[in-house]
Every structure is written in structure tokens, then in C-alpha cells.
């Protein structure tokens, strides 16, 4: 699987490259600035891109903007965005096109190599990987809403993991229950929230994320 890595700090870029290589990813390019990233994404057509939000030369959210622009060119291009901080605002922008293949994680998550690699794989396959911090913020905010109040604590847990983009199997493993139990929980959750049931894992995740974000969605000026 071919990866483009964009990160301006040498130590982190080097670390990411080493880790990905150790897990048998092929590094198509490791770049350090926005323009380079744009070029690499257009020319090398990688299977997945791992991108730092803040990149030179502007040191604003250049990485994010490059990724969004590349996805407009090539819808569904898998991009995993890394950042020192996570913002729901950015998560919303990344998810806006609804085509999946999006990851948004804190840089800290690379500490746990297995989980991080799992997230990269998930994203490259068109899945979603949202940082637990984004999800827990969304959940706290929606927790006063009536439909959310009907969820059992277990269902909440399942919902939280599902919103992060985990598959039923992964959720089952984490909560030490059977996959069938997880499937039952998810169908309960969808019933209680009034969301359309779907067999497609990824569509399910996006539906949950959209539900969580909807409560106070407001037009974004950009």
C-alpha cells in the first residue's frame, strides 16, 4: 500500500516513515510543505495520505486545506489528518463531503502503533477514524438530548467506539463481547435515534457522526 506522508518536523516525519515501513507500507513520498504535498497527491496517486494540519510555508492549516483540495479533485481520496490539537470545526469540514476515507487524529495516537496502523488501514479502505476526543466532546454536548437519554450505558460505549470508526469486530474485541452482541447494540442504537439501518459499516459511522453533529449545526462561514 502506497503512502504519502506530509509532516514538517524532521523527527516526526522520520518516525512516521519508519513506523509505516515497519508495518509493510510503501512510502511513495515524505514531504514537508503544502505545495509539495499538493504535487505528491496529484502525481503519485497514493492509496492513502498521512497529513499534518499545520505545514509550511504559511504555518496555518495548510495541510488540511491541501487535503480538502485534493479530495475535491479526487473524491474519496483517503486522507488521515494528524494534529497537535483536535477541533470539531475541522472534523466537520473533513466529513462534510460524506464520501468517507477520512481520519482525524491527535498526534499522540501514534504512541500506540497497532491502533494507529489500524486507523491508517481503515482510512485507506474508505473507512473513518475519528479521534476519541472529538467523539467524547460531541457526546457530552448531545448527552442532554432526549433520544440520547434512552441509550443504555453499554449502548453509549458502543456508539462512542462506532463513531470513532471502529468495526463491529474491533468493538467486540475492545469491550470483550461477541460480535453478535455488538450488532444487536448497534441496531438498538439506530432504532432509538431514528437513523436508517444499513449494512455498510462506513455509511453507518457517517450517519452516527452526522447525527451527533446535527444538534447545533450552524452554517460555517468558510
Amino acid at each position, binding site marked *: 500500500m502506497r503512502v504519502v506522508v506530509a509532516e514538517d518536523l524532521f523527527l516526526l516525519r522520520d518516525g512516521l516513515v519508519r513506523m509505516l515501513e515497519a508495518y509493510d507500507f510503501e512510502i511513495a513520498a515524505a514531504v514537508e510543505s503544502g505545495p509539495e504535498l499538493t504535487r505528491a497527491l496529484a502525481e503519485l496517486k497514493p492509496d492513502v495520505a498521512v497529513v499534518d*494540519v499545520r505545514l509550511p510555508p*504559511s504555518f496555518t*492549516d495548510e495541510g488540511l486545506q491541501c487535503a480538502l483540495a485534493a479530495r475535491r479533485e479526487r473524491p474519496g481520496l483517503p486522507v488521515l489528518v494528524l494534529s497537535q*490539537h483536535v477541533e470539531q470545526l475541522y472534523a466537520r469540514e473533513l466529513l462534510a463531503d460524506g464520501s468517507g476515507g477520512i481520519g482525524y487524529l491527535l498526534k499522540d495516537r501514534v504512541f500506540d502503533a497497532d491502533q494507529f496502523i489500524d486507523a491508517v488501514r481503515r482510512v485507506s479502505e474508505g473507512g473513518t477514524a475519528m479521534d476519541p476526543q472529538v467523539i467524547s466532546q460531541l457526546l457530552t454536548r448531545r448527552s442532554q438530548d432526549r433520544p440520547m437519554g434512552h441509550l443504555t450505558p453499554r449502548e453509549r460505549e458502543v456508539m462512542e467506539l462506532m463513531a470513532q470508526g471502529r468495526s463491529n469486530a474491533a468493538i467486540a474485541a475492545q469491550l470483550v463481547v461477541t460480535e453478535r452482541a455488538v450488532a444487536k447494540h448497534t441496531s438498538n442504537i439506530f432504532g432509538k435515534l431514528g437513523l436508517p439501518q444499513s449494512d455498510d459499516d462506513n455509511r453507518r459511522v457517517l450517519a452516527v457522526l452526522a447525527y451527533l453533529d446535527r444538534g*447545533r449545526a*450552524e452554517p460555517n*462561514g468558510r
Partner: protein
Amino acid sequence: MKVRKRLSACVQGLGVSVLALMSIVVSVLTVLSIAFIPLGLGVLTTPAMVGVLRKHANQRRLLAAKWSGVQIRMPYRPLPHDRRSGITGQVELCTFLLKDPATWRDLLWLQVDMTAGYVIALLAFAFPPYGVEGSVLAAGVWEPIVDAGGTYWYAFVPVTSQGTANLAALTGIGLIALGLFVSPLLLRTHFLLAGAFLAPTPQMTLAARVERLTETRTDAVDTSAAELRRIERDLHDGAQARLVAMGMSLGTIEALIEKDPAKAKELLAAARTNSAEALAELRDLVRGIHPPVLAERGLGDAVRALALRMTIPVETEVEVPGRFAEPVEAAAYFAISEILTNAAKHSGAARMWLDIHHEAGMLRIAVTDNGNGGASVAQGGGLSGIERRLGTFDGVLAVSSPPGGPTMVTMEIPCAPVAPRPTV
């Protein structure tokens, strides 16, 4: 409508002339009070009397703006906060007031107001009533007057018969018309004259500005020193301590790795947790110094992201032309953040509204909540801290918070948009 407005200028002229007569009383009492200072009694009465004088002058400033659109700013130095109580405080206050040149200029204005000011205001009033008198004469009143005292001069018309009385009536109508025309002008002249004495001189404006700058500079220095101290403490007790702990753990792991791999693994996990926590602390610290979204996207998106993090719904409306200077953006952001957090914590609000826009060189911010109200800019409170920090940018803050709510905090910061930093 226009005639009515002009007529009201006449009535206003009468009102102002009455006020100008009151200037005599105020003047006499103030001068007496000051004259009694050597006897001691004046020390007690002068501050009160200067207070009355200022109220009297402020009333004229107010009327000037309301009736003639003449803006007269207040030249008074702000009263010292740290006054002592009792007689000493009274003496201090008296000295302070007498040292303020504005007090003496006010006193000078009283003299002008009771003479020239009075005459002009009375003229603004007098034309229409005098004009009416012409008609009254023509109606027959001229007869007894002429019988009793001979020729009666109405303006330039010697009234001796019905014919000349009719002429007087005609002149009177002319005078009324003239009065309608000049009354507003005369009233305005009165206020301009008052403004010449009541408005601060350029030198006083400058002195006030220097004083304000000194004050806000002190505030700015204090604030940034406190901020650095806080950052130092946070780093020292937080990330730094965690890194030390991690270093120690790694040392132990090195020693244990062969003897007791299981224990070493346990310690490694702990070290990793520690590093994650250190990162989380650093992240919070960075957010407190300069929020990343602010650096990346500017004020608009930074407050949108902030609103998304609040537990209470915040409706955000931002209309700004691009970016502002970084310090302004940061000051505005932290002010908003603090107000929203306080409102969420103390007001009992279920909803908040945030409105930011830029017009006429001013960044205007309004934060409203539907909570219990009762917020104030009390000394030492959160809002007064924000007010002081905005002061560095010549920004101002106002609060409207009646008991029972809603609370609205408005802020204005003069600033101009800056060109975006180069991208790509």
C-alpha cells in the same frame, strides 16, 4: 414638522436662558466655597460645590448634543480610586479638584454663560413672542398705551394710530418669520460658545491621553508578567515534572529489562501514559497562550471552534473582513472565551449568542445570554479584568445585565484588517 422644530428651538432657548441664570447662583456659591477654604469650612463644601458645578456643566453638554448636535467632551480627570476616608480624604479630594484645570475653566464658563450665553439664549427665544406683540398692539391694545404714554416704539415703528399699529403687526409677522430662521442658529451659537470653554483644550486632551496610556501600559506589563509567571509554573509543575518522571522510569526500565522483563514492560506502559499526559498538558497550555485555530484560521473560525466546545449552545455570527493584527485577535478571543465560560458557569443560561462584526474601524463584539442577569463590571471581578486587558488596545467594554436577565456584554476594539500572511 420643520416649523415645529424651529419653534421648539425658541422654547429651548428659553430653557437654556433659565439655566444660564442659574449659572449666577452656582458661580457665587462656588466662589464663596473656595474663598472659605482658608477658614477650613471650604474644604468640606468645595468638593460638593464642584460636583454641582460639574452637573450643571454636564447638563449643558448633554443639551448641546441633544438639541443642536454640538458634541462637547468632558475634560475632567478621572477621580483617584484609592482615596482615604475621613477628613484626609476630603482634603485630598479638594486639592485634586482644584488642581484639575477643568474646574477653573468651568468657573470661567459660568461667567460667560451668565452674560453672553444668557443674552444669546434669550435672543433665540425672544423673536416670536415679540412678533406676537405686534399683532396684540394692532388688535387695539395700542390705544390705551398711546393714551397713557404717547408714542410707543415697536421695534422701529412709532405706534400712534391704528395704521401704524397695523404696520407694527406686519413687522411682528416679519419678526416671527425671522425668529423661526435665526432661533436654531442662535441656540447653536450658544452651545458653540459653551463648547469653547467646556470642551477639553488640546493640551488637556493630550494630558488625559498620556495618563490613560500610562495606566494601560502598567496594566499590560502586569498582565503579561502574570501570564509568563503562570506559564512558567504550569510548565514547571506539569510537563517538566512528567518528563523527569519519564526519564527516571526509563532508567529503571534499562536496569530491569533483562532481570524482570514483565516489570519493565509495566513501567514502559506507565512511561507512555506519562508522555501522553504531558502532551495533553502542553496542549492545554498552548491553547491558553495562543489557540491553534486562531493562529491557523483567524478570529472567526477560532470563536466558531470555541462555540462548538461550549456545553451550552452558542449561536455564532461573525462578519469580519479577513484577519486582524495577532495581538488584537488574541485579546478579542480570550475576552470572548472568558465571557462565554463565565456565562456558562454562573448565569444559568440555556442559550448564548455571539455576534462579531467590523465596521467604521471598530471590531464590535456582543455576547448575550438568557440567564439570570445581575452581572457587573465590579472592581476586581472577571469583567473588570477583561476591561483592563482591552484597555491596552483602547478597547471598551459595557455590560447590560438587569436582574432576571438577559445579560449582554458588548466590546469595541478599534482596529483595521491586515493583509493575510503569505500562503503557498
